[in-house]
C-alpha cells in the first residue's frame, strides 16, 4: 500500500519552505496542533452526516498535508473530501480511522527524529 511513498517527503517539503529546516519543523508542529480539532470536527460531522462539513474539513486537511509533503495524510484527507462530495458516510467513517492511523504514524516518525 505504501509503494515508494514516505510519511513525509522531507526534500520536497524543505524545498517548498525555502530550505529553512526550523521553519519546516515549526509548520509540522502547527499541522499537528491543527489536526486534533479538525479531527474532532470530522468526527462530529460524520455523526451528524453533515457532508458539506466533511468535504470542507477534508479539503482543509488535504491542503495543509500537501504543503508539508505528508503523502499518506494528504491521500487520506482527499478520500475524506471525496466521501463528503459523494455523500458516502461509510467511506467517511473508514477514512476517519485511516486518518487517525496516519496521524499516529506521523507522530511516531517525528518523535523518532527528535
Amino acid at each position, binding site marked *: 500500500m505504501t509503494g515508494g511513498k514516505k510519511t513525509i517527503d522531507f526534500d520536497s517539503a524543505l524545498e517548498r519552505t*525555502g530550505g*529553512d529546516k526550523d521553519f519546516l519543523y515549526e509548520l509540522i508542529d502547527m499541522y499537528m496542533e491543527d489536526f486534533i480539532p479538525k479531527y474532532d470536527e470530522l468526527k462530529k460531522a460524520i455523526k451528524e452526516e453533515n457532508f458539506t462539513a466533511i468535504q470542507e474539513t477534508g479539503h482543509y486537511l488535504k491542503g495543509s498535508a500537501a504543503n508539508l509533503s505528508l503523502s499518506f495524510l494528504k491521500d487520506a484527507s482527499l478520500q475524506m473530501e471525496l466521501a463528503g462530495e459523494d455523500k458516502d458516510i461509510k467511506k467517511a467513517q473508514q477514512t476517519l480511522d485511516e486518518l487517525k492511523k496516519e496521524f499516529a504514524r506521523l507522530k511516531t516518525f517525528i518523535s523518532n527524529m527528535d
Partner: protein
Amino acid sequence: MKSKQNKVKILIAEDDRISSKILKKHITGWGYDVLVVPDGKKAWQVFEKNEIGIALLDWMMPEITGVELCRKIRNDKSGKYTYIILLTAKNKQKDINKGLTAGADEYLTKPFNPIELKARLKTGKRIIDLLEKLHKQAIYDGLTKVFNRREIMRILNEEFYRAQRTNQPLSTIMLDLDHFKKVNDTYGHPVGDEVLVEIVSRITTKMRAYDKIGRYGGEEFIIILPHNSIKSLKKIAERIRINISQKSIQTSAGPLQLTVSLGCTSTENIEASSTKMIIKISDEALYKAKNNGRNCTVVG
C-alpha cells in the same frame, strides 16, 4: 516615498495557516509588501481601501470564497485593477475554467511550486506597473505634470458633491497667463514650455496640501480648494499672483517677467447648482480680471 508608492502590495487571503505562512515567507523574501487575511470577508475589506496590486486568493475560504471574491472585485469598477491569482487544491479542468471565468488572471494549484509562484508574481507586477503607467498618462498633463482637463473636471465634480453632502464651501481659481502668446511667438514654444513648468511650480508652492490643480487649456489652469472660505480664497489667489509677478522667470532665452490674471469663486458666495455654473462664474471673473488690466484677482 516614491519607491514605496511604486511597490506592489500583495494580499494573501488564505484560511490555512500553514499555507499562508509559507506564502508569506517566500513573497516577503522576494521583496514584496505582504498583507495576510484568513477569510474572504476580511479580504474584501482590504480591497475597499484600494491599496492592493496583486491578490493571491484561496478558493475555499470562510465567509466569501475566492471565486465569489473574484466576481465581486471585477464587478466593482471604482478602484484600480487588481491582478488576481487563484490558489487552490482544485485542479479539474472545469474548476480552472470556473476560476478564470470569475475574473482571475492566473491559476495556481496547491501545493504551489515557489519558482512558478515567483514567476507568476513577476508577470502580475509587470501588468500592474504597466496599468499604473497608462493611468498616469491618462490623468496627468505631460508637460506640467498636473492633472489634465478631463481629470481635474472629474475631481471638481467629486468635490462639488462632497461639498454639498458635507455642507462645506468649495472654491475654485481660474488662472491664465497674461500675454503668453507673445512668449511663444517671440522666443519659441520650448521657452513657452519652460515658463509653464515654472508657473506651475510657483502656484503649487502656495497651495494647501489638499488643493488640486489641473491644466484647463494651453496657458489656463484651474485650482480646486475644498473647505475654503471666501476670505482665505482671496488670500491664496493673491499669494499665487504675487509669487509669479514679483520675480522674473529664468528661461534659456533669459529672464522673463510674467504676470497672471485670476478669476475666483466659492460656493459660499454663489448659489451653484452644478460644476458648469462654477466654471462659468470663475471664467467670467477671469474675464473681468483681464479687462481690469490683468495681473489681478477678481472674485465672482
